[in-house]
């Protein structure tokens, strides 16, 4: 049995991915790298949304937007990894729980 793919399907898929990403950030208590991956997951869900909409609405803007996201995300990840490296250098760990020097 086959369903026709509609915008709703795309949106639902991306919503699931988005929720997974967000949940990953909140629930993950171990690894900073995993957080970076979850952030990528969020960006991916957004891209799916944009490209899907672009297709169904026959509007090019969404595809251009996702190109921008890819580019910016690369820069973002580079900065993120650099900061994680710094953190590792200073603390010898990449556990997110270790980042608790400042609180209150």
């Amino acid at each position: 049995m086959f369903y026709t793919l509609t915008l709703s399907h795309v949106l639902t898929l991306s919503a699931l991915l988005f929720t997974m990403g967000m949940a990953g950030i909140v629930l993950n208590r171990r690894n900073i790298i995993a957080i970076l991956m979850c952030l990528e997951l969020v960006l991916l869900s957004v891209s799916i949304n944009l490209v899907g909409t672009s297709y169904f609405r026959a509007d090019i803007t969404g595809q251009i937007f996702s190109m921008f996201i890819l580019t910016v995300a690369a820069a973002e990840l580079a900065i993120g990894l650099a900061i994680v490296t710094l953190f590792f250098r200073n603390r010898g760990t990449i556990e997110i729980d270790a980042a608790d020097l400042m609180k209150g």
Partner: protein
Amino acid sequence: MTHLDILLTTPLLVLGIGSLFLLMLGAFSNNARLTGIGAAVVILAAMVQPLLQPVSGPVFAIDGGAGGHLMQVSPFTNIATLILLGIALLCLPLIENYFKAAKAYKPEVYVLVVLALAGMVALITSAHLLTLYVALELMSFPIYILTAFLRDDAKSSEAGLKYYVLGSMASGLMLYGISLIYAGLGTLSFTGVFTALNNAAATGEAAPMLLVGTTLILVASLFKLSVAPFHMWTPDVYEGAPTPVTAIMGSLPKIAAVALLIRLLAGPFDSLEGYWQPALGWLAIASMLVGASLAIVQTNLKRLLAFSTIANIGFIMVGIVAANPQGASGALLYLGIYAFTTLGLFAALMASGAQTVNDLKGLATRNKGLAATFLLLLFSLAGIPPLAGFMAKFAVFTAAVQAGLVPLAIAGVLSSVLALFYSLWLIKVMVFDTPDTLTPTPKIPQGLNIVMFVSCIATLILGIFPNMLGNLTLAAATAIF
């Protein structure tokens, strides 16, 4: 679009090209101070165009073809840009001494500041959600880097990490919101969204998807503004970041974010006023309360100033929520005044060398001038007339009353009593407590002196002649409503 109209975007062009130029300058000369001077020149050059026609200039939009306008220059963006760049100039002298002491005085600092400024100007002038996203990231990335700039400092890299993770998460939320708006409306330009939302509102209920999208977009700017409850990162990042960066973070992105928020609410999301006005009103009250009450229990001065920022953003939100020209004007006025007051306070903080509240004990006996500077700026921050801070609060509360939001204005006035609490507490510590040590404070670097002096003078002058800035912001705000 004529060839001359492109001149109106010179601030962005100058800052963008200027940052690349500064990168070269820094790389080849390896002279941080020279780069700093270059940065000042670039910022000054970027100010020329908006200065020529601050409020009389035309409204000009860069056309993005079928996608709609990408950027829009208007009197409002001109004034916001001018305030932003003026404050940025005041930030530069803070940098040298601190980074030298931390053995991290490199040309890149200035390059990153100018890059972030380019992002902020782009953010202020953006007229399309794509531009908005790129601009927001261009503003954020350099600040992430600056926050973690002290490589061997655990706190600095931890602050960078926290800011990065939460900032990326906020921009992820915003992106998702944008994608929902796109899915719902099929357009991303401000004018397109405005028309589509208006039509949606005219035909019936606003679709939930659009509301979710709008909320998510707003959350990103609320995060940058550190409005409670999106403020949690602020104290930690303020504490860990190098102090000049904290000062920059506490002033420049706030200006850009407030300008953006005002433009979003007066522009594309205007028809949803019934939804966001009460919600943002509550957030304003929450910010004022959380900021003031958490500031009192702090011991670290940078954390204290972080909560002070949160409280002040609450007051600015009162002006924004009023959703009238007076409110937007009041918010801009408040922001300008708040920004140079905060910079002055950070300069005084660096000059005193104090880390914790206890370090300030008896400062009045150790260094009268410095204590007097603190006194003046804290009084202004607390809203004591005839200092500038009073005029700022007066402006936003009047706007709220004019918009019929009397309970909000009352809540604001009551919160300013709370806010008075920590200002007076600091003053009490400085003036009445016995100092632990009687050694005079070390000689104050010239850069800090300049910032404190300008800040104090501006506090006094704008307190007596608030219309010098107020007339400009009102003209600017009237242009977008």
